[in-house]
């Protein structure tokens, strides 16, 4: 073996590394550096370095509140997306082939509509005199009409709408790798349809579910347009605070610190998720049939 063949992998990876570094690491580094500068309304960005921005944010109750809200919205969105998306993928998978294509197209529909148009649609539906409240009033639901717009509920609804396709598609990919004979085997052993789904299909598509959940969580936590439009000015999330600092207050260093903290929060949540939730869930689902074995495993 000569030296050249050892270099080949590095050389082959070089173009994508350059793009990666240029398009991701460089701007990220820029943001990080920016967040260490001070700011003055008269003089703009100050040349000195320091951690004041972070100190200010971490002691700010408004920031704590919006960070909590951001994570809460992301968690609810993820949970609802899973509850809707996983069965949805399964149902479409079970359809006759000629329906499947059309159904998948309908499912990815929300992704094809611009975020602004989609959110305006929800504003129309969720307003005090909107369709939803009209229907609730006609049905005589006590308390109707409700205040739906500019609530966390509205934000979650708007996010779920666009995120469900991600779960459906990633579960769909896992289902494609599932051997259909497994279902027949389960049926032949006397399993009901629900049991087949719970005991055979679900554990085998777990990787797809986990990947979908992660995508939805990260995208929801960093979503900007939907919280801004459906949550309004008062319901701040971290990304809308960041936007505000950059474009309204023009305090770029503070905005950069906000962006950095959001990224750290999402990364931490992701790590906790993959380290604990994912492995534990996989193991648990793999061992549902615990009672059936000889009990000899240590």
């Amino acid at each position: 073996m000569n030296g050249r063949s050892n270099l080949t992998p590095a050389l082959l990876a070089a173009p994508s590394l350059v793009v990666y570094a240029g398009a991701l690491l460089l701007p990220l580094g820029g943001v990080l550096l920016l967040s260490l500068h001070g700011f003055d309304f008269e003089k703009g960005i100050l040349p000195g370095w320091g951690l004041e921005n972070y100190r200010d944010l971490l002691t700010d109750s408004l920031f704590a509140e919006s960070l909590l809200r951001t994570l809460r919205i992301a968690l609810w969105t993820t949970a609802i997306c899973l509850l809707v998306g996983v069965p949805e993928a399964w149902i479409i998978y079970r359809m006759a082939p000629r329906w499947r294509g059309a159904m998948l197209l309908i499912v990815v529909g929300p992704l094809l509509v611009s975020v602004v148009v989609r959110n305006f649609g929800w504003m129309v539906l969720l307003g005090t005199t909107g369709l939803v409240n009209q229907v609730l009033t006609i049905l005589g639901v006590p308390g109707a009409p409700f205040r739906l717009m500019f609530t966390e509920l509205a934000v979650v609804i708007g996010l779920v709408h666009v995120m469900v396709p991600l779960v459906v598609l990633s579960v769909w990919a896992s289902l494609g790798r599932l051997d259909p004979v497994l279902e027949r085997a389960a049926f032949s052993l006397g399993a009901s349809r629900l049991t087949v789904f719970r005991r055979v299909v679900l554990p085998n598509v777990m990787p797809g579910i986990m990947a979908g959940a992660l995508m939805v969580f990260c995208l929801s936590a960093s979503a900007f347009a939907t919280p801004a439009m459906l949550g309004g000015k008062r319901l701040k999330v971290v990304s809308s605070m960041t936007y505000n600092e950059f474009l309204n207050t023009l305090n770029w260093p503070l905005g950069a610190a906000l962006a950095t903290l959001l990224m750290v929060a999402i990364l931490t949540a992701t790590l906790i998720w993959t380290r604990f939730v994912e492995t534990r869930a996989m193991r648990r689902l793999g061992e549902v049939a615990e009672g059936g074995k000889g009990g000899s495993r240590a």
Partner: protein
Amino acid sequence: MAAPHFLTLDRIGKDYGAFTAIREVSFSVAPGEFLGLLGPSGCGKTTTLQMIAGFEAPSRGRITMDGRDLTTVPAAKRGIGLVFQSYALFPHMTAAENVAFGLEMRRVSKAERIKRVAEALDLVHLAHLADRFPRQMSGGQQQRVALARALVIEPRLLLLDEPLSNLDAKLREEMQVELRELQRRIGVTTILVTHDQSEAMALCDRVAIMQGGRIVQIDAPWRAYDVPADDFVADFLGRSNRLPACAGGGQAEAGGHRFALPPDLADRQGDILLTIRPERLRIGNDGAAGLGGRVQSRLFLGGFWLYAVETALGSFAVMLQNTGSVPHDEGAPVTLDWDAHSLRRLERA
């Protein structure tokens, strides 16, 4: 057959759109019988099995088991043990969990479940691998888990779809013996699908030979082998040599050799197509009575020699037992000889 029928397929047919996969299949299986379903690829074996199991609905006809019409009984309620060609073990469950699954579905108590799973794994000699996942087992071990999983629910009918096709020759032979023994011991009615004719003949009480969505012959293996219903069966079950001859007066003539016809063909006149199995031919030294030819090639198979002998009527395969005597050399002139009762007439020329 005098025994009461356990499973009966009555003029079953199956269409996939405009394509007819099963034209008409009727047969009955006696309780405890081991039936082989045999035929070339695409003849409809798997389709037939899936219809019995309840995963494909027949387009025509009726399936009854134990006197009960199965048409409206869903697969999960048929109580049929099924071993798929690909094993279809649940990849996220250990061997023991796989075997336990069917018992859990039947709400068998935990204590009894543990006992029966252990027994089933014992039956297939896999007790020591109970906690392995399928991906940690060899093909043969997986296949035995699949068998244990199908047997543990004490099925009234066991369906095996080419269960040994992925195994190497040695393991396959071992599994054949084990399977046969197991089936005898438990006495479960079994249908085995295979396209390996020697496997079917070795294992089964009767074989059903399928071709193009039909059953051409259903008989004991040795009868199907010795008295094939037609050309197709004769060719499919083992090798056979064709011998076109001209008959007259209880005798026939081919390639300048005159020979006697068996009694059932004695009254034949004119052109006739005969067949003879390779192991029924004898090779004589040049000059002996018989059909003249020359050794084209010879293969040593341990217990047997397989010769190809070129004659005026084409090449003949000859299988001779290895008796330790000096073999015929390649290129040597020889003659072929046979007993009259070894000759069969083919339906079609």
